Each structure stands twice: as structure tokens, then as C-alpha cells.
């Protein structure tokens, strides 16, 4: 007969033994490490020297303290890095940078309000990753069209058109947000 007078040896492992039955769970720490690794990989594609070290610092900060928004600093650094990276046309490096920065945004958004000790059901990642895949496919196709099919002489015009469209889109998004914040 088991009684309360006979303490069980498993008592010190209480937390493990009473976790909800949710199947395998991913520690949030793993997602954070994935963000750090992805950040370094994307940065290494086009940044060098001081900028790569700075990117490594951002990657570390993104993994340790997501609330400092270091992931977006790194995305911004990589985005601006395309200005002087010397990548011309649609290359594998560019395709990887395009996908990597976007994936970094998706993962960093998910982990922004997640504590390091949290555990994540892998299925939670499915819908954001599906959305990522859809958007990324469209972005890659657009990049191929712009960088491979548009004549090089017209690229500055194309960038102006795309930039203005993007700025308009950003303004449409930012105005309601800023109004609500105000």
C-alpha cells in the first residue's frame, strides 16, 4: 500500500513528471539559438570585418535578450549592406539574403515575447512558416523578374518605382499605428 508516509524518490523531479501531455515540445532556447545561427549565416553572406563583428554582437543580443530588438538592427544592417556588398544581379547569395532576412523577421517576431524557459509546440511554427514560404516565393519571383529580366539600364528606374511603392506601403501601415500610439 502506498502511503504519504513513504516519500517517492521521484519527488525531486516533480516539474518533469507533471508537464501537460502535448507531445514533443521545443525549448524556446533552441529557437533563439536558431535565430543567432541564422543571423550569423545571413550576415556572413555579405558583411565583412567590423560589420561582421557588429552583426555577431547583434546576433548574440538577439539570442540573449530579444526585447532589445537586435534582430531588426541586424536585418537593417544586412539590408543596407546590399548597397556596398558588390552583389550584382540575382545570385545565390542574394537569394539567400532575401530569404534569410525574412525568416529572421518571422522567427524573431515569434520569440519576441517568449521567455527563455518557455516551451513551444512545433505545430505553432507551421502557419508562420507557411506564410513565410508563400511570401518568399513571391519575393523571389519578383527578384528574378527585376534583376534578370529588366535590362540593366532601366534598373535605377525600377528601383525608384519599387522604392516609392514600398514607401507608400510603409506609410499606409505606419500611419494607423502611429495614430493609435499617439
Amino acid at each position: 500500500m502506498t502511503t504519504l508516509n513513504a516519500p517517492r524518490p521521484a519527488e525531486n523531479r516533480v516539474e518533469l513528471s507533471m508537464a501537460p501531455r502535448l507531445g514533443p515540445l521545443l525549448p524556446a532556447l533552441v529557437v533563439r539559438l536558431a535565430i543567432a545561427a541564422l543571423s550569423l549565416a545571413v550576415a556572413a553572406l555579405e558583411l565583412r570585418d567590423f560589420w561582421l563583428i557588429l552583426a555577431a554582437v547583434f546576433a548574440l543580443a538577439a539570442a540573449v535578450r530579444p526585447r532589445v530588438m537586435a534582430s531588426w538592427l541586424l536585418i537593417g544592417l544586412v539590408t543596407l549592406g546590399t548597397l556596398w556588398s558588390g552583389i550584382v544581379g540575382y545570385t545565390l547569395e542574394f537569394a539567400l539574403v532575401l530569404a534569410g532576412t525574412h525568416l529572421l523577421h518571422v522567427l524573431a517576431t515569434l520569440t519576441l515575447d517568449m521567455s527563455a524557459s518557455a516551451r513551444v509546440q512545433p505545430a505553432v511554427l507551421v502557419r508562420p512558416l507557411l506564410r513565410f514560404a508563400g511570401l518568399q516565393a513571391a519575393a523571389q519571383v519578383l527578384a528574378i523578374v527585376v534583376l534578370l529580366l529588366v535590362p540593366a539600364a532601366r534598373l535605377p528606374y525600377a528601383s525608384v518605382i519599387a522604392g516609392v511603392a514600398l514607401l507608400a506601403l510603409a506609410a499606409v501601415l505606419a500611419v494607423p499605428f502611429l495614430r493609435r500610439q499617439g
Partner: protein
Amino acid sequence: MTATAASAEARHWPLWAVSAAVPAAVIVAVLGAAAGLLWGSPQTVLVALPLAASVALTRLRRPAPGPITLHADVGGRAEDSRLEYGIEIAAAPDVEAMQLRLSLLATAPSDVIVTRAAARRITGSLPVLHSGPQEMVRLASRAIGAGGQALGEPSPEIVVRGSVAPKLLPIGSLPLPRRLTGLTGTHDSSRPGDGGEFRDIHLFAPGDRLRRIDWKTTARRGSSPGDLYVRRSNATADVTLMLVVDSRDDVGENVADWSRGTAHGKGLGSMDIARTAASSIAAAYVQAGDRVGFQDLASPSRVIAPGGGNRHLQRVLRAVELTQPSGASPYRLRAPLIPPGTLVWVFSTFLDDETARMAALWRAAGHRVLAVDTLPRPNLSRLSRQGALAHRVVMMERDDRMRDLAATGVERLEWQDSASSSRAAALRSLARLRGRGAR
């Protein structure tokens, strides 16, 4: 082992807020677009494009306001010393995931992020570490929409509190008071009467029943024609006992956890021992036809007058089950009043003078007092040197207290021996002691 089935529910309408990731992405996208525009770099614009599109998609798929219902329950029957718990969360289809902040058995809360579908019904099991009232599940949640770019307001916390009934252990020998004052029962008293064992042969006296005349003895011993001898027997009586539980503190076997008193860190607690001992003793006496009362030493209002029968036993068992440390430490000038001739069982750790003083007062009033030592065997691991020294001093003071108590005539029973045979032997010894000078 059974527990009181318990549940809790909350319903709230969360306000949705935009995650800090959204403005960050917008800023990066604007910077990228502006830089690409100025330097005529389509690559820069293209890298910024998915971020802006992702944010735009979020605004299109912004979760609609809707109620979120949280429900948590804990089952009533323990299987293999574990209790099943369930969590149910109903949320609008726009909600992609739920962040649950879950604390089980008052442990530190941990976050789990699950899909909305998985959150509809989550189950698990809790180990039954302690008896008595306890917090079982504490839950709060937050809805996550659009891949974390929309966050719901955190829900109010719901707490499921339940109570676990202590296990009843068999008691073979029942110590009795020095004097049995009851009029009927299952125990032999020293009064002449009906129902008990043979007492003596005595000359017939007015009031003796004719069927008690022992004709053989009369024929053998009668010295004159009118002499008649009767066989007299002892009367039977019931016992009145009072269970006095000292619930002012609850210390576990892990001494390092004494200052924190966490449910999962303290190990077997003194209140676990007290509840098991008091319930087992109450059940054994009531089954023997005796009358049992209950008194919580920490609360003058928690008193049950002695009574018998199964319904009264359930009342006493429930009172014992619900006894928990209240933090109150009242100083009593006088010991609580107890009916004359009552056997007093005191359940305490005797870590301070108060309970020992009460026990000595009851003993001085003529009651037989049995002190059940509920202090678990100490586990000194993880204890600092200073902590070990402090524990040693406390134990030395306690030993002195127990010695003084024994000198006043209070008998002691150590319940925490895991071997039931030694406890049974101690109870047998206490049951035999009553024979000397019993009236």
C-alpha cells in the same frame, strides 16, 4: 486516495495589441526602401520588400475581437497516486496560438506555447505529494495572432484549489483513558455491570439479577441457608477522545526548505503526518464504537464536540483534511476545555512551548494525554553550516521540551516511522499501559 474534484473558469475579451516587431519591421523596410531609392539599388529595395509585405499581411489578417474562455479542472480520484488535470481554452479562429503560463502544485510558473487546436483540451497528471488543501493548477493565457505580430491582452489568472484526503492506516491497538466514563461500548471498564468479562464471585445483593446466581459456587461455599453467590462481570464502556491538531506550522523533511515551505521541495510534511495520524486514529476509534472530537489548536473556532457514528466520523475526517497552517500563533492562557475522562491525542511537531504547555495542562487536569510527534525525520542535505547548527540547537531545545513533557506524564508516540510494525508495537505498548490503575 481521493481528492475533492475542483475546477475554475474565466472568460474575457482580450484587447489586441500590435507586437513591437511590427514597427521595427516597418522602420527597417522604410530605411531599406529609402536607401535603395537614393542609391538606385533594386537589391536593397527587394530585401526590404518581404518585411513590408509581412506586416501588410498582418494588418489584413488582424484577429477580430472575440471572447476567450479558460477552464481548468482536477479530477477527484487518484490513480497510482496521481491526479488527472485538464485545461480547456476556447478562442476565436483568428487566434493562431495560445501562450499558457502554467503553475502546477504551486511550482514556479512555466510558459508553454501551443496551437489553438491543441489548447482546446490539454491533459496531464499531478503527483499527490501532500494531503490537505492545496493549490493544484494556476493558469493564465495570452492569445497570439498573425505569427506573433498581434498579441492579445493577458487573461485573468484562474486558480484551481483542491483538497486531498489523507490515507487511512489500520490501527490494531487502541490506547484507552485511565478511567472509562461511558455507559456502553466495546471496552471493558472496571465498573461492575453487564456485557464485559468475568469480574468476581460475590454474595447476592439487592439489585443482582437472579440469572447471575452461580449455583455451583453457592452449593460449595454457602455457609448458611440464605447465602447466594452471583457471578459478576465488568460493564462495557465507550471512550471519549479529543484529537488536538497543532496546525500552526508545517515543516517538511528537507530542513533546507523550512524557510520556504514549497509543496514540491519540502518532502513529507509534518501536517501530512498529522492528518494521516489523526484520520487513522479517528476512524479506528469510531469503528470501535467510541466518541471522537476534534480541536484545531491554531483556531479556537475549529472545534467539533465528541460524537460517534459514521456521519460524525466523516465530519471529523473532513475537518482533519481541511486543516492547514494558518500562520496564526495565539497565546492561550488556559487550555481548551475538554470533557472529563477524555483521552487527548495531541498531534504536533513540538518545535515551540505552546503545544507542550497545553498538553501538560491537560495532563495536570487528569486526562491521559498522548503526544504524537509529527516532525518528519530530517534530511539535512543542501543545508548550510549555519543552517545545520541552527537545526541542531532547535532539536536540542525540542529534546529538552519532550523530556519535560514526559516528566509530567504525557506519553509520546513517534508516527513518522515508515515501518508500520514499529508504530503498531508502540501503540500496543500504549494500549497495555492503561491496564495499570484503570478505573
